[in-house]
């Protein structure tokens, strides 16, 4: 899918040139009004004053960002110290997303490579097998994972039954369970770009390396990996970015101790206890981080393309 979008531009014709603006108008309108405008509105809300029963009062204020970064004591009159609570939650999210990305890479890279080296005829079928679970409801997949991993769940039953362990391993409500859930959520995003890159890779290079007596693992590291690097980086970003802001995996598999950004944001909009400007500010900080990552990535990709041509 991503490949089709990326290769846009090469095959354009101008058959419908005159109608172009009319054809684009509906998508501009819908996405402009219901995605772009809301994000701008969210930026505005993050600088407003909170209303105690949810919602906002239209008075400009920096309170939301102040609360995020600074601790001024219970009554707000102490000298400002750095507030670590929310920074810790963001840091944990980055760390968890990073671990999930690494896990996806370790499993996803060999998988993608294996599929790309199958006979051409059967490759689409392998890709299909990998992508099917992605289209199953994320909530259902996460619940299934929890069902499988829980203390009295089938996995522990199986391990105890085979005599490998005596008492159940506690997996649910640990960091690892969240990482596993994130891995399960976004694995195809890792496999597909790497697969596309390995498929384009010219294997005569590997053959040349073998002719020069390079051991196979050296060939993989020094010849194959550099050639498919853009695919690997794309895969890592496509897993990392949604993992960072995910809600279901940390909420269902992580428990209260493993709070991540998604849950922090969600809490601000639930019922009357929330703080809308603070939730909007936390969302803005998350969005800014994601956009910076995507920008660096886009710049590197275009650099790599220029170097390649």
């Amino acid at each position, binding site marked *: 899918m991503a490949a089709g979008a990326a290769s846009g531009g090469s095959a354009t014709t101008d058959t419908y040139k005159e109608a172009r603006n009319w054809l684009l108008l509906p998508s501009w309108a819908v996405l402009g009004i219901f995605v*772009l405008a809301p994000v701008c509105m969210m930026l505005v809300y993050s600088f407003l004053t909170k209303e105690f029963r949810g919602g906002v009062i239209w008075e400009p204020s920096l309170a939301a960002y102040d609360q995020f970064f600074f601790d001024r004591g219970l009554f707000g009159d102490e000298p400002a110290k750095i507030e670590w609570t929310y920074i810790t939650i963001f840091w944990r999210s980055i760390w968890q997303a990073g671990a999930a990305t690494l896990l996806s890479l370790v499993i996803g890279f*060999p998988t993608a490579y294996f599929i790309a080296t199958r006979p051409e005829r059967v490759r689409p079928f392998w890709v299909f097998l990998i*992508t099917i679970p992605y289209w199953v409801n994320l909530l259902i997949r996460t619940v299934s994972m929890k069902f499988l991993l829980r203390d009295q769940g089938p996995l522990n039953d199986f391990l105890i039954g085979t005599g490998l362990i005596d008492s159940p391993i506690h997996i649910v409500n640990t960091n690892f369970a969240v990482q596993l859930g994130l891995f399960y959520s976004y694995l195809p995003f890792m496999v597909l770009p790497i697969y596309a890159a390995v498929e384009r890779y010219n294997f005569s290079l590997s053959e040349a390396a073998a002719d020069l007596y390079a051991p196979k693992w050296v060939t993989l590291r020094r010849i194959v990996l550099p050639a498919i690097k853009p695919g690997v980086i794309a895969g890592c970003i496509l897993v990392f970015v949604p993992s960072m802001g995910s809600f279901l995996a940390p909420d269902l598999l992580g428990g209260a101790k493993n709070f991540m950004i998604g849950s922090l*944001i969600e809490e601000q909009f639930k019922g009357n206890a929330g703080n809308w400007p603070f939730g909007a500010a936390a969302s803005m900080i998350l969005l800014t981080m*994601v956009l910076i990552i995507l920008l660096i990535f886009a710049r590197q990709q275009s650099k790599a393309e220029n170097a390649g041509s």
Partner: protein
Amino acid sequence: MATVNNDIKTYKGFRAITLLCLLVLYAPLVIVTIYSFNASASITNWEGLSFRWYADVFTGPESDKFKVAAFNSFTIAIMAATASTTIATLAATAMVRGGKFKLRTVSFGLISLPLMVPEIVTAVATLIFFNSIGFTRGYLTILVAHIAFCIPFAYLPISARMQGIEDSFEQAAMDLYATKRQAFTKVLMPLMAPGIISGFLLAFIVSLDDFIITNFVKGAGVETLPTAIFGSVKQGIKPNIMAISTMLLSFSIVMVTISYFVSKSDNTK
């Protein structure tokens, strides 16, 4: 390119990791499917095969809630997929058949915006937007939000398909005095059918599956299947949830399989 010896290409252990990967991906789904047929009221003990929990979904104490949620989910998914596929088809025609133009990159950025912005951020933004214009949250707000975020999912297969169709078909039609509109509706659209169907099905599944954005914009009292399931799961996983999950996951898999075979079929030859 000369064929390269398979010995050089393949690595030991990669097949095993691939199989492990498939095991991790499918094991939870298979196990929930198996346990949904469990006769026991406890989710831990196995007491034999039964359709008890499937019957419970349709007639049990929670069945009214599920029926309303299923109605909301499916009607929203059908309408959102229809609208977003139409919008995406028009946009793809402009992007692929509209020549080079200044706003092309901007338009592509706008179309892929829902894919780049983290879902929770889109959810917060949409909630704030509806709140700021004083729009009451409910069925309609879910529908509108779904139409917007389904557009890129419909767009990708549709534009990929259109790039694969040479414009010589339309040119030939126009040489034979077909108007542009006729070339579009009578020549390009029929050729586009597999891409459009596949885009529609993906948009449909994405809408049906969405939890996070729906959870934010749904308002009190309006539930879709995912939000109803989430509400139940918060009190613990129950057998009827596994039955309803199995039905939903089978449905998604069937739809994706249809989409896969439709998009593979080639009617341009």
